[in-house]
């Protein structure tokens, strides 16, 4: 029972959050929490590669940004009525765009993964970083879609008859996507695939010796992970109705890694806790001093040292 108590309380708090934010007179907190959930989803996506598969990727911001741009480009074309590349018309439907975003991010992860996974260790970290920076500069130079100014679109994508302009409605839509994604993560972790992937993380040579095609397994994990990051990017694009190359800057990849480590990589809920802790600290310290990063850095080091294994493993729990 105790195992489910904290997640249930956390979910109850999230469900009530838009009402609480209104009552305390800070509706901006709804948007802040939506952002935390989206980054939690992105960190959780990275966790499939990092925590489950032991693949330290410093390039996941690329998939996150590609997902965001898929939304931006599709929505812009839907509004203008001009087909993309003169071939495909855009869409303003959230489900269509989210599927497109995940598909495009998945294809990007498949291509990058097919090359990067031929390396390991520090080489893998550097090659994923290099690919992400290549994509960052590609979008920076893409003047047709705003270049370094980014791309703004007027309204969020439509979902059924919901009023997506309303921040509380978008908060609940995001929560729905987050819960669905965490369910996917739990399914992966507890599947045959999850057991074998965990084995590869622990001892790849052992897994090869029992006949596991470890490259293929890691590649599949990397693609699922990239698709999750694309989903998060799609939601972030909708949140601000704006996409820019900054989304795929390497510092975003670094933040996602910090969220995983802080919350507990290899756990289902850890990366989400890490996102809430990191963004919450950033938002709080930001109001105290303009030199908030000087406080945040040492604080993160202390937290990682104090909560070895991450926030999700406090008291030996592994949600």
């Amino acid at each position, binding site marked *: 029972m105790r195992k489910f108590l904290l997640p249930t309380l956390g979910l109850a708090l999230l469900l009530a959050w838009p009402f609480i934010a209104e009552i305390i007179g800070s509706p901006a907190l709804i948007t802040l929490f939506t952002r935390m959930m989206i980054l939690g989803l992105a960190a959780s996506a990275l966790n499939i590669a990092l925590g489950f598969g032991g693949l330290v990727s410093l390039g996941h911001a690329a998939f996150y940004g590609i997902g965001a741009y898929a939304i931006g480009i599709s929505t812009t074309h839907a509004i203008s009525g001009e087909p993309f590349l003169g071939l495909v018309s855009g869409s303003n439907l959230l489900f269509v765009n989210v599927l497109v975003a995940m598909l495009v991010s998945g294809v990007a992860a498949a291509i990058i993964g097919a090359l990067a996974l031929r390396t390991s260790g520090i080489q893998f970290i550097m090659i994923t970083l290099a690919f992400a920076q290549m994509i960052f500069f590609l979008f920076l130079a893409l003047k047709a879609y705003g270049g370094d100014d980014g791309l703004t679109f007027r309204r969020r994508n439509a979902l059924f008859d919901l009023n997506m302009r309303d921040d509380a409605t978008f908060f609940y839509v995001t929560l729905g996507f987050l819960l669905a994604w965490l369910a996917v993560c739990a399914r992966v972790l507890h599947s*045959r695939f999850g*057991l*074998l992937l*965990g*084995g590869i993380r*622990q*001892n790849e*040579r*052992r*897994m*090869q*010796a*029992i*006949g*596991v*095609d470890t490259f293929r397994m890691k590649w599949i994990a990397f693609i699922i992970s990239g698709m999750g990051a694309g989903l998060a990017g799609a939601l972030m694009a909708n949140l601000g109705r704006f996409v820019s190359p900054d989304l795929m800057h390497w510092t975003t990849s670094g933040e996602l890694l910090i969220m995983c480590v802080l919350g507990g990589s290899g756990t289902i809920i850890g990366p989400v806790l890490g996102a809430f802790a990191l963004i919450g600290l950033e938002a709080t310290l930001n109001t105290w001093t303009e030199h908030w990063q000087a406080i945040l850095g040492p604080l993160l080091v202390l937290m990682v040292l104090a909560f070895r294994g991450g926030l999700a493993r406090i008291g030996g729990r592994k949600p």
Partner: protein
Amino acid sequence: MSALLVLDDLTKNFGGLRVTDHVSLDLRAGEVHALIGPNGAGKTTLILQVMGELAPDSGAIFLDGAELRSLSQAARVKRGLARTFQVPQVLGEYSARENVIAALYARGASADEADQYLVRAAISARADVRVSDLAHGERKQLELAIALATRPRMLLLDEPMAGLGPAESEQMISILQGLRGEMAMLLVEHDMKAVFALADRISVLVYGAIIASGTPQEIQNDPRVREAYLGTGED
């Protein structure tokens, strides 16, 4: 008996050092073939080549008549090759049972089969213990259970007695005796008591080359082997 695994004129060099020197061996179905030799003779290197972890410079390896050169390690395991390691390679965060289940999942089998392999390797009493908490000897037994779960036709055992005490060695010999006839085994081992208790045939590898092959009796009486490896019994 027909040859199950055939090594045909294998050669491997590391730079200027020849670690496998025109090795040819026939391993017959169901027999235990021991490969002995001093440290650095190239025994483990030979296992690496058979499993596909290392490519030979020349020569060929056949399993049941099919050439293995172009096959990945995973494909070789699916065809019936399995190995254990001198230093146990196990999944420390999993229980012993989960380690065996991983091998079962790798060949698409059900987790329900795990217990039978743990029993065969006499490690079933420790099935639910996290592997990082197992003793060295228990890990050796677990490695055997994992290898058995792949349902090998040819099992390559890389020093299964290494690091074991006398009682543990006796137990390992007894476990391996129990597997006799079910699969062919290539036993790389320094423990001569185990070799002579288990082997049907013995080959002696020195500086990467096979210097003698034969029954345990023939090997024991071979003067080249006595000189190069077993010793003459004289001070």
